[in-house]
């Protein structure tokens, strides 16, 4: 299907509207004019009758007495003479006229030759009549009982009147007939001109580099295009943000994996190069630590991947947070024991049920607890509290470690931010897992002051849903 053109559409709509208004207006105005012209001419006919009346009264009726029963004939110039006269003086609206005078008995007394064939006036005739002679139509005015029962008739040939109407029609119609196509052309130009910003937008869009996500700028976007531009730029910005997050994430992953790898390489090479046994042992221990760190980070990445995959395929089910937490703590037993930190799990009720994804919630809990353990020095304590509220279930992980200054808390989740106190221990990855898992459950994460005085309270609130 051929795409509809906004420009053609607008042009046609405007032209149709113009025709719909202008043509009836013209017809109406033409009709009014015809009526006015008719009245004007009729008036002139009546006027001529009055003039005759005055003349007859002045000269007396006796002067008009006819001899042959047909009355006197007033000669009229023949048509060619009239045409000649008209071309000389150019009276456009000079009409072919005639008159008749009848006595009280209806006998013709005086008449112009051109109207001699008109039927005699009848008593019931209207003032104005349309009558015919052989080949012409006449407009006739009858004036009765002027003096001594005399009747005067004035007549005008319709074709003269039609000539005037014809001229008037030309005056009205021709501009309309010529004007409308011209108008259509001008409307076309105006529409094109008016839609110029659209063309500019198209130009701006088509001249962009492929894949560019820079915002689009039009010098002065009209009001109607602004929401389009805003929506477009908003979309581009979101795309850019998503890509930027993706870039940051992969840069972060690279850092998290390559750093321990670098440490392993340097440590092993040092151990091989040195002849000092203590130094070699230190290096090997360092390499061992880094291998463990690398393994943990790979586990975290796998957890993140599993989390995404599980969500893509799975449905939300009813999950008991207390049970998930117990499983996670059991898994972490060795790490908890090694850390020398006291971990307390406080549950309000034997079950706290939320709708969600088990693997994601487990990953969230595991990372929160691991982070807390890592930031708390030996002999410190970590508390996990699970509570069920009216609208949400809350998970609180509280520690008495160094904490995060209030002014830096907002930034922690903003990017794959790395806290000053953390010494590059995969904190970034752990947090992105926590963040992603919370996001999947529509849960909020808050970083609050710890009731221990120092340390951090991480609160995750999971809405209970329908």
């Amino acid at each position, binding site marked *: 299907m051929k795409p509809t053109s906004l420009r053609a559409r607008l042009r046609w709509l405007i032209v149709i509207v113009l025709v719909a208004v202008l043509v009836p207006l013209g017809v109406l105005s033409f009709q009014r004019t015809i009526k006015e012209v008719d009245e004007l001419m009729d008036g002139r006919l009546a006027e001529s009758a009055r003039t005759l009346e005055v003349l007859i009264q002045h000269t007396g009726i006796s002067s008009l007495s006819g001899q042959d029963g047909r009355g006197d004939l007033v000669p009229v110039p023949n048509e060619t003479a009239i045409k000649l006269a008209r071309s000389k003086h150019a009276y456009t609206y000079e009409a072919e006229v005639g008159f008749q005078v009848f006595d009280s008995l209806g006998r013709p007394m005086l008449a112009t030759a051109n109207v001699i064939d008109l039927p005699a006036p009848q008593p019931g005739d209207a003032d104005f009549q349309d009558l015919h002679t052989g080949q012409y139509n006449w407009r006739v005015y009858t004036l009765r009982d002027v003096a001594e029962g005399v009747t005067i008739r004035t007549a005008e040939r319709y074709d003269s009147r039609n000539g005037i109407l014809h001229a008037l029609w030309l005056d009205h119609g021709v501009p309309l007939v010529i004007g409308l196509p011209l108008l259509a052309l001008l409307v076309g130009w105006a529409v094109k001109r008016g839609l110029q910003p659209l063309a500019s937008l198209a130009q701006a869009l088509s001249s962009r580099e492929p894949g560019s996500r820079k915002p689009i700028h039009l010098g002065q976007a009209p009001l109607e295009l602004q929401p389009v531009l805003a929506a477009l730029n908003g979309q581009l910005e979101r795309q850019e943000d998503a890509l930027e997050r993706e870039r940051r994430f992969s840069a972060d992953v690279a850092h998290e*994996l390559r750093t321990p790898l670098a440490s392993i390489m*340097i440590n092993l090479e*040092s151990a091989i*190069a040195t002849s000092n046994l203590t*130094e070699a042992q230190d*290096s090997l221990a360092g*390499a061992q630590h*880094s291998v463990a760190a690398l393994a943990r980070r790979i586990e975290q990445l796998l957890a993140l991947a599993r989390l995404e995959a599980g969500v893509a395929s799975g449905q939300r089910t009813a999950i008991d947070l207390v049970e998930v937490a117990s499983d996670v703590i059991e898994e972490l037993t060795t790490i908890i024991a090694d850390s020398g930190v006291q971990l307390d799990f406080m549950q309000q009720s034997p079950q706290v049920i939320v709708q969600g994804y088990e693997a994601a919630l487990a990953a969230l809990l595991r990372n929160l607890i691991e982070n807390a353990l890592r930031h708390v020095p030996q002999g410190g304590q970590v508390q996990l509290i699970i509570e069920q509220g009216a609208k949400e279930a809350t998970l609180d992980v509280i520690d008495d470690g160094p904490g995060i200054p209030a002014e830096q808390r907002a930034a922690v989740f903003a990017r794959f931010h790395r806290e*000053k106190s953390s010494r*590059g221990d995969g904190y970034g990855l752990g947090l992105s897992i926590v963040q992603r898992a919370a996001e999947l459950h529509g849960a909020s994460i808050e970083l609050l002051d710890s009731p221990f005085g120092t340390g951090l309270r991480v609160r995750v609130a999971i809405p209970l849903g329908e």
Partner: protein
Amino acid sequence: MHIILVEDDTQLGAAIQRALERLAYTVTWLHDGRAALIALRDETADLVLLDLGLPGKDGLEVLIEARRNNIKTPVLVMTARDTLEARVAGLDAGADDYLIKPFHLDELGARIRSLTRRMQGLAANRIEVGALSLDLGTSEVSFRGERVELTRREFSLLQTLMERAGRLVRRESLENSLYGLDNAVGSSALEVLVHALRRKLSFETIQNVRGFGYMIPREPK
């Protein structure tokens, strides 16, 4: 030679420090960007090894700010950011070299030597002054054709003096180069080291301007 190492990973930091110290460098290890910037401002280091993914202040910001403050200390960036854009950004920010993690110790050593040479205006690893010859690559020293075994610090001291042969090197500068930011070193440590070095070479090799510093003359007797 004094190197500031800025690395937040505990294991990698410790590994590099151990390895470089074995190569007779003096290493000060800092863990975050802010501390690195403060240390850079003092301009006591001969070289900075800078990780980019740092907590507190990103390594790239540290570098840009240092260069803006007209600090000319050579900086070798070590990072996991391996994209072309990242490398260009790093070099444009004022890095003298760019090393991508993970890297081999040998390569790190070679790049440090290369930067050092560039810094000294040298073309090769071997420095020769009169009868003295010092190889930065193999850490070997020979005097009058005979190989001399030196400790790390002795080697480092000799290297510094040979690099500036014919010029007087102030003792603060030597102490800084040898002991870094370690203030616990006694004031006689340098004298002891010079004494040991003179014993292994010859007394006249190192000349002394009392209370001011030491020098190796261009043509030692």
